[in-house]
């Protein structure tokens, strides 16, 4: 009942609609993720007085507009039982929606009396009279008219209906969304370790760069020029545990760029990065330029800081960028499949067995299959 304030509620999860996810570009999704985490932080911190007051007021209004009979109905619909009070009411012959009191006679005597209708009003109420919420010292007519009991009843019906569907929907969606989120997280974790393995295997095989090991969570391991071309903020490096082990890979895969950078003072490094970003921007916003100068040589960048060009430079082609981008836009599950497929094909390595087989044949006989379930 209370989870409206909870960050697991649909309010926040709505922004993570699985459907939208695949259609958005990576950077768009990143922005979404950022906004999402901001919202999470917001939910986590203590709320301001104003927010709390608003929340309380909303809850109050909701409480006052939800009929007890609706609540009973809902409780029964959810498999609970009617309250004893409700049973007592029913026993006296009450049906929800009715007003109390003597049954009306067909012709009320008031109609026999001249002008009586203007002076008297029927006060038969099926719902409690509404409470005017605090409006300060505004004069009569300067404030919103409080809901009349009839419109309250109407409103109520509508609200109750909406709440019901919302609840049913949210219960279903909550579970599936929760599951999806869990799976996504699990896949991300597996992807990361698969990529680590892949990088080691690549290294052994002498592959200098493989876009399949690119992971924004390990942005520091991505060649900066590619990084910028992809629009990823390199400061984000979630996988701290990987730091130490990554060192060698950096050297080899990243063409010692990082080494160069560590030798430079940080101010220079920043400027360098800024330059690179600018270059990358130009290349993205002006596709024509890429046509002219098809390759963005790593050397062109490094030359500014280092006169001596590196022998084994990584050539960042627009094709590579596209490939990487396309890869990154896939959900973690797909990316994982692709990495695993690559390893099976190239190195006869099964992630689930954790074994590098000698040959395709060896793998076919010893490995139960491609998927995780087959390894159960």
């Amino acid at each position, binding site marked *: 009942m209370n989870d409206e304030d909870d960050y697991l509620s649909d309010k926040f999860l709505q922004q993570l609609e699985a459907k939208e996810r695949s259609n958005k570009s990576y950077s768009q999704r990143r922005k979404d993720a950022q906004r999402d985490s901001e919202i999470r932080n917001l939910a986590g911190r203590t709320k301001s007085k104003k927010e709390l007051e608003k929340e309380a007021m909303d809850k109050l209004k909701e409480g006052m507009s939800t009929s007890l009979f609706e609540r009973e109905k809902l409780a029964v619909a959810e498999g609970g039982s009617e309250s004893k009070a409700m049973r007592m009411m029913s026993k006296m012959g009450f049906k929800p929606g009715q007003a109390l009191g003597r049954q009306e006679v067909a012709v009320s005597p008031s109609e026999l*009396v001249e002008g009586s209708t203007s002076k008297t009003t029927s006060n038969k*109420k099926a719902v*409690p009279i509404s409470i005017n919420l605090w409006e300060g010292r505004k004069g009569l007519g*300067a404030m919103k008219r409080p809901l009349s009991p009839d419109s309250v009843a109407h409103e109520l019906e509508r609200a109750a209906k909406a709440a019901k569907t919302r609840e049913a929907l949210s219960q279903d969606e909550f579970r599936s969304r929760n599951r999806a989120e869990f799976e996504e997280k699990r896949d991300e974790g597996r992807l990361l370790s698969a990529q680590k393995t892949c990088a080691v295997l690549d290294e052994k095989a002498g592959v200098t760069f493989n876009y399949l090991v690119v992971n924004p969570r390990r942005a520091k391991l991505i060649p900066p020029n590619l990084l910028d071309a992809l629009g990823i903020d390199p400061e984000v490096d979630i996988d701290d545990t990987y730091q130490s082990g990554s060192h060698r890979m950096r050297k080899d895969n990243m063409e010692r760029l990082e080494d160069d950078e560590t030798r430079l003072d940080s101010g220079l490094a920043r400027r360098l990065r800024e330059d690179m970003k600018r270059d990358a921007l130009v290349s993205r916003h002006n596709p024509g330029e890429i046509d002219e100068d098809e390759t963005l040589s790593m050397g062109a960048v490094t030359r500014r800081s280092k006169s001596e060009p590196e022998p084994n430079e990584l050539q960042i082609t627009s094709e590579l960028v596209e490939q990487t981008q396309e890869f990154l836009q896939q959900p973690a599950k797909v990316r994982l499949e692709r990495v695993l497929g690559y390893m099976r094909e190239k190195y006869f390595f099964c992630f689930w067995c954790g074994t590098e087989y000698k040959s395709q044949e060896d793998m076919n006989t010893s490995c139960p299959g491609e998927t995780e379930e087959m390894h159960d």
Partner: protein
Amino acid sequence: MATHPMHGWVPRQVTADKVTTAMDGDINPFTKKPLSATYKKILEARKKLPVYGYMEEFYRIFNETQITVMVGETGSGKTTQIPQFVAYSDLPHLKGKMIACTQPRRVAAMSVAKRVADEMDVELGKEVGYSIRFEDMTEPGTTFLKYMTDGMLLREAMNDPSLARYSTIILDEAHERTLATDILMGLLKDICKNRPDLKVIVMSATLDAQKFQRYFGTEKKLAPLLKVPGRTHPVEVFYTQEPEPDYVEAAIRTVLYIHQAEDPGDILVFLTGEEEIEDACRKIKIEADELASQDPHVGPLMCVPLYSSLPPQQQQRIFDPPPKPRRPDGPPGRKVVVSTNIAETSLTIDGIVYVVDPGFSKQKVYNPRIRVESLLVSPISKASAAQRAGRAGRTRPGKCFRLYTEKDYIKELEEQTYPEILRSNLANTVLELVKLGIHDLVRFDYCDPPAPETIMRALELLNYLAALDDDGNLTALGSMMAEFPLDPQMSKLLITSPEFECSNEILTIVSMLSVPNVFLRPPNQRKEADAAKALLSIPEGDHLTLMNIYNSYKQNEHDKNWAWNNYLSARALMQADNVRNQIQRIMERLDIDLTSRTVTGPRFYDNIRKTLVCGFFMQVAHKEGERNAYKTVKDNQAVSLHPSCGLDTNPEWVLFNEFVLTSKSFIRTVTAIKPEWLLELAGNYYDLKQFPAGETKSALQRVLNKQLGRQIQGNGESGAPDARKKKKQKTDHQAQGGYSTPPAVQGYATPPAGTARYSQHRPQAS
């Protein structure tokens, strides 16, 4: 020797001539004593009352019909004269019967009875008496005319369902539509069918008599109406052109305008509450003084506040004459009374010529959905507006300034003020009705039927308190509870208290809760008042603080200044003492032991708090999040402790006496409790299987789990299956990820609610 003035009279065939002759005689027909000179003097004044001229018409209708509706505006004399007219016709003193005249307010019942005793030249409390809650000023066998609060008559009906001791019942001020009057109307309508000898007069001050005529009439014929005009003068009504952005400012401006531009005559301003009234008075005073100093044509102005919590001697100031001109032949002074709506009907202030009506009043409205009582400013009704305007025409033609547009008057204002039955918590009323033998609360002939949800909430409470069984029948406990003129939670406390050996203490707390606020907080001495209160506070709870205050008051009874020095209302404390005596008498009558633990200490307080849980377990809030952020149990409404609350910490669980909505949601009069008590003493209500999910449920579940763990450790020998269950429970908990609560543990029997136990071995009320 003169013949008896009533010789040969036949009851209810008396004519106005005979009555007038008897009144003018020398012998009091009711006491057979000679009439005094004072009587004669008063009689001359009585003859000038409008209602006196309608005596003949009155008898014509009264003698013919069973139920009469009468309309007479304030000042027509109906409250004092009609009951006397009835006495001359019923001759109750000869038949051992009585005439009852109900009043919505205690003070009115007392003061009118005094006045009528004087008019009839008898002693108050003998032939003419009054009966109000906690005070009975009648003499059985002698009293034949009894003024009483409507609530008292209702209570009498519980033990005398046909009201056999009365020959005529007069419901006065019926237009106020108090809860008790409404219920009485329904009852009397029913009783009249079986008692043709009983006569009923419904008296109302406003012209909405048709509602009563129709209610008490048959399908084809309205009940007869006697209409007595009041002594009123025409009142000219003015509206504003535009809605006012701030009605208080507008009211002040209007007063100052009247003071400068209008002829002499006092002003009555209607505002909504104490604070607003004091604020307005201060501002008017400042502005008026400045005006007077600048303009020699502006006279002096006196501003008097009026609201119910004002001490009586200060209330009297409204009757002071307006200030004298500053110099002879200077501009005359003017009196301004700034009042709540108590000046609307109940008080008459002479000399009022101008009325300023912003169109608001503070109204108490109960909402059964979240069980809150709001005290919010709301628009008045057209009937109320008419009543207010009428106040300007008491002495001479007057003017009424309405601070709203005519369009809004037509469009925004309801015809009638909502009767109390639509605005109140009906727990007590439902208990009374059931005790009266009304079992069909759905088809009871209400004048205005209350919201079904309000009745359902009342049934819910009474069922959980074990006053009603699951079929809605009154239990022995419920019957006993109905004997107390108190809310059912409170009577439950009193009946339960001997179990916890603290009935004296609970009696004190209940008495203190039944009187107006005892704490004084003068605007200029707030700090001192708060410090004095802190000295008397008990950190565990306001209920205990109230008890402590009463005890200290009793210990210092010899010291007349004690209350004053401690910023406490001596009047309220005296009243509490009186109420305590009355309730104690009821307890003694019902054979409820008055016990106390001899040792004091934490256990002593714990027992009192446990008893409180037995009555107020449905009024509990749980702390969630912030320091002073609580949620009411089950309804999950965000509330804070009221600033008046004396707890020095913010305990996780609190029990409260009131949940009120003013500018914010507050709980008032709060005591810290332990969740274990809720589970132990109110297991029915705190049955977690039926509990709405949320933090409160989780918290209770943790307590329950802890208890369960302890219980398992306790019976180690039954080891294996229990241990498994415990393990299962634990894994359940983990599987749920801690977000939702695990289902209530099966097989753990919650102890029965205290209620069920007590109802069994308590002596039954007779």
